[in-house]
């Protein structure tokens, strides 16, 4: 599959009605990813509603409630490909109430497309979604200034919005080359897959061309190797009598046979004897590989433990500070007890202190005694056992966690370790 096609994961963002679903529908249409029956359905219902054009948002808003209200409620994952690239797009909701779904969609993405309605310019949701993109350290942000057809394709409008947005970029951790501005009309397909003749003043790439040339870093590609043990493979068959393979996904860096490794939490050391990918023995594995590893010595290592190169060991602590985004309507309170899931490892966690709630418009913080749905704040935790982590900045996979509450076992928060 797709061996020679790269995989790019994208999330859309922006306020209600900025045209996110329409943009995705347009990308699908222009890359010929929509089936005839779907196009016909869109034509029929667009006609019914008395539009002069096709309403492409109907291609992605799959829940009945969404189609009734004309808004997106939950993340939809959409797939399409060009000759060179496989795309996965998370179409996220713009409505403030569903900000958590934007966080969810963006967490698995490398690229965010933030839409701005050219008539409205930079508004509160733009701040918020850009803030979240910054928090999540998305590799590339595309600012699509949409509905240019409604402002006569005026370059001045575009420049004004770009300048406003640049002021935000200056307050963020992003560098200029991580941000790209494209004036588009999702509805008419201007600068989506086709260079717009209406906007000759824009000389950059179309959105699709731009997305295709990106080389974004994935969750797995980061700094140094981290191998959380997911499942211990013990065949207990005649042929594999003594085999004890530690299986899991490799993050952050390569591991190879002969590497000297440290095992956490025991801090014992050993050497990698073999690396298995199905029935093949391999010499070295790149980040993102799901593999099984055997070691030179008999060691105590089980699910939730971690194997790392001895040359770069992560922090192991029972206390940590993290930026939290609350993704459930049950608020996070001081003294609250949760199951903290860090990768595949679970420990108990207690909220020691909520230091602040963070304003998502880059204007600072305020004190808070709880974090409500969609709130972002800085929180101190105490854990029942140490976890082996990096900061989110250093290693996304090893620097993030979720909190599970003990009643319904809902996932209530996501944390980014500092």
């Amino acid at each position: 599959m797709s061996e020679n096609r790269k995989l790019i994961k994208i999330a859309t963002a922006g306020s209600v009605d900025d045209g996110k679903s329409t943009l995705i529908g347009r990308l699908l249409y222009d890359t010929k990813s929509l089936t005839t029956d779907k196009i016909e359905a869109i034509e029929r219902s667009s006609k019914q509603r008395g539009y002069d054009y096709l309403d492409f948002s109907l291609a992605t808003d799959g829940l009945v409630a969404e189609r009734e209200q004309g808004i997106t409620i939950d993340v939809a994952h959409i797939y399409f490909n060009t000759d060179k690239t496989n795309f996965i797009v998370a179409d996220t909701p713009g409505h403030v109430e569903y900000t958590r779904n934007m966080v969810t969609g963006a967490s698995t993405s490398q690229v965010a497309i933030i839409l701005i309605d050219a008539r409205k310019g930079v508004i509160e949701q733009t701040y918020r979604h850009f803030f979240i993109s910054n928090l999540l350290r998305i590799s590339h942000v595309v600012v699509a200034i949409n509905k240019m057809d409604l402002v006569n394709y005026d370059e001045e409008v575009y420049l004004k919005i770009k300048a406003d947005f640049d002021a935000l970029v200056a307050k963020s951790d992003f560098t200029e080359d991580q941000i790209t501005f494209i004036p588009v009309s999702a509805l008419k397909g201007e600068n989506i897959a086709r260079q717009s003749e209406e906007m000759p003043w824009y000389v950059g790439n179309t959105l699709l061309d731009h997305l295709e040339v990106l080389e974004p870093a994935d969750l797995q590609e980061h700094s140094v190797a981290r191998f959380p043990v997911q499942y211990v493979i013990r065949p207990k068959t005649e042929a594999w009598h003594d085999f004890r393979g530690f299986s899991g996904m490799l993050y952050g860096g390569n591991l190879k046979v002969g590497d000297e490794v440290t095992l956490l939490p025991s801090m014992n050391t050993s050497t990698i004897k073999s690396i298995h990918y199905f029935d093949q023995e391999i010499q070295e594995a790149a980040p993102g590989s799901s593999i099984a590893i055997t070691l030179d010595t008999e060691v105590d290592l089980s699910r939730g433990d971690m194997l790392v190169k001895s040359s770069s060991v992560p922090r192991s602590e029972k206390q940590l500070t993290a930026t939290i985004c609350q993704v459930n309507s049950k608020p996070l309170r001081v003294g609250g007890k949760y199951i903290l899931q860090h990768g595949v490892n679970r420990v108990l966690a207690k909220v020691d202190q909520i230091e602040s709630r963070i304003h998502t418009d880059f204007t600072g913080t305020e004190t808070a005694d709880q974090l409500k749905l969609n709130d972002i704040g800085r929180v101190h935790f105490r854990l029942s056992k140490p976890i082996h982590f990096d900061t989110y900045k250093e290693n996304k996979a090893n620097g993030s966690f979720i909190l599970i509450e003990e009643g319904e076992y809902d996932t209530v928060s996501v944390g980014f370790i500092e």
Partner: protein
Amino acid sequence: MNNLLIPNPKEAESIHIIREVAAQFERPVLLFSGGKDSITLVRLAQKAFYPARIPFPLLHVDTGHNFPETIEFRDRLVEELGLELIVRNVQDSIDQGKVREERGRYSSRNSLQTTTLLDAIEEFKFDACIGGARRDEEKARAKERVFSVRDDFGQWDEKNQRPELFDMLNGKIHNGQNVRCFPISNWTELDVWEYIKTENIEIPSIYFAHEREVFLRDGMIWTANEHVFREAHEEVLVKMVRFRTVGDMTCTAAVFSEAVSLDDVVGEIRDSSISERGARIDDKRSEAAMEKRKKVGYF
């Protein structure tokens, strides 16, 4: 020995998910239909646990109206890989009076499967059912989580789903609940076919073009045999067809095709003039089929 492994990201993700299922649940089961998606799941599960055996059984809910080729294939696969297979029959649920056979033109046992499945879940106390559903199949599926928590009645609460952040999966549940797990959520139909090709995975013969007795109705190509209700005027034709999905005969339509090898099949699906999701081949033909139907005075 291979030097450096550069992972196929979708495969690696699926293996990760399958290992999570084995680790987080006590009694998982793989729902096996004999179709290409569940065959792909079996290969991924092999890869997840090799050199150990797959640590959970397969469950096939047999409607009794499956293609015989699929059943033969199923039994051979299970035998070759040394898997444990559980079969539960819709016929038994009918005989026990739990469900009633549908009648008439569109009668199918497809929807009756749910009862048999839920009974099997209860009988074996399965807490996780691994399925081969993909998000690209359908709009509502596009909203489905990888770990989808169901209540005692197996129901999906689409507006109240657990958010899934990064690749962390929360499978914690209470007694009586169970989770549907979808390791190939992020695969497209083309991904599956390309994978079957690269991995050289065997699949049932009905996926390749073959001559079959069929009849046309509503722009679809139906298998003509004793399990499928057919009106007297619906004429039986012999055509070269293949199946894009394989399930119960009463709800699985064929497509006209000349594709006799995996290369042909992948080519057919990849070809931009043919849609990825199965509509276009049918559609193209269905214009003719529709016309024909109208001619015979569709009711």
